[in-house]
């Protein structure tokens, strides 16, 4: 038990790295996904095709293969990044495709009738959007966005392969240097599990605050 607890400081640092990388990538990805989705409706035909190709490529290949292309492959054509940069860029690029699909579904889920009813009662377009469409879209999207963030955190483990000092890398380091296997990996599982649980709980709280009457799935 002692050896288990003594790992906490190093793992705490590693959690921070994992969180920094994941949350930054998720944020950029969410932003990117949002913009992509908003633009999608105004895309000319050929651009819409590229969007579908992009989604197909990103969702049809493992994240690991995308990461190694960015970190090892891009330098060949002159684009070099640090391991952390490569992770954040590739993770953002990867998650943006998923976020875009989430926003697309979120927008489609709002019943038309709500906006029409608002207009009929003389509520301005912007006010209607803010008080009717947006909360519903957000309440719908929160569990999916939280889920995607959790997925990003889990994928970040792959960055250990290019020696980003996140959780998995740290655990493997400790294992390699101390020849103990159980404590570091047990701690690894616990850390990830706590991270994902916290995000899930935070999402439930946020949803309860924004849209208390909405049923959670």
């Amino acid at each position, binding site marked *: 038990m002692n050896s288990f607890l003594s790992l906490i400081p190093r793992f705490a640092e590693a959690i921070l790295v994992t969180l920094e990388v994941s949350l930054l990538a998720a944020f950029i990805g969410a932003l990117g996904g949002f913009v992509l989705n908003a633009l999608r409706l105004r895309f000319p035909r050929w651009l819409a095709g590229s969007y579908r190709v992009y989604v*197909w490529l990103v969702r*049809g290949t493992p994240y690991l293969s995308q990461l190694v292309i960015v970190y090892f492959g891009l330098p060949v054509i002159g684009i070099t990044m640090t391991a952390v940069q490569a992770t954040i860029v590739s993770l953002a690029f990867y998650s943006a495709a998923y976020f875009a699909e989430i926003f697309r579904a979120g927008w489609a889920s709002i019943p038309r009738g709500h906006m029409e009813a608002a207009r009929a009662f003389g509520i301005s377009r912007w006010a209607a959007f803010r008080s009717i469409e947006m909360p519903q879209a957000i309440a719908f999207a929160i569990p999916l966005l939280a889920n995607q963030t959790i997925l990003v955190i889990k994928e970040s483990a792959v960055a250990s392969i290019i020696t980003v000092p996140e959780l998995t890398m740290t655990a493997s380091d400790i294992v390699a240097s101390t020849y103990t296997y159980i404590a570091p990996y047990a701690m690894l*599982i616990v850390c990830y599990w706590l991270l994902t649980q916290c995000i899930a709980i935070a999402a439930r709280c946020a949803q309860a605050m924004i849209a208390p009457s909405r049923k959670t799935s």
Partner: protein
Amino acid sequence: MNPPDLLARCLGYLPQLLDGAITTLWLSAIAVACGFFAGIFIYMMSASKSRTLATAARAYVSIFRGTPVLAQLLVFYYVPSGLGWAIPGVVAAAVGLSMNTAAYQSQILGTGFIAIPRGQIEAAQTFNLTRRQTLWHVEIPQVLALTLPALVSEMIDIVKASAVVSVIAVTDLMRVGQQLSSVSYRPLEVYTLAACFYLAITSLLSLAGRGIERRVARRA
């Protein structure tokens, strides 16, 4: 970059990448199959009247869905060797992937089980079918038909998740890519080609899934 040279090099990579792809495929297939039966078992546990079993099942699902596959595989590969029992990478990979997908499949299959009207089970009971016969002849065929699209989706996820087994010394598609790129010093070509293999596999699975969906919809 000279197109004919490029093509020649790519063709040169093909045989080994193909070997790696085959490893990826049968590893994924084993995981899907074991995960199917394990998933049913875990679902039954979660639906059982025993509080201990139900909680254990929920804990299992929570842990395997709430942690990265890579971390799980590292545990299955290194912990036994730490306890003095060295497991080959493929075995750890197969076990780890199976247990991981079992957690997801238990949820997917569970929605199918719940959808079957209780009366059909009662009829089976009345006619003295054993619990196992009811499961196999009445429930599972319908669960499969109901959840096939979601299962195909899960299969695609397994193929993608399998890429990390390269870390525990399994010569899958990804690992072949790593080997080839370190030998050829052409990571962009090699990794892109490897990615294309994954793309081909997942796209074919997707098409198959949509085909099955259409056939099932016609039957209903």
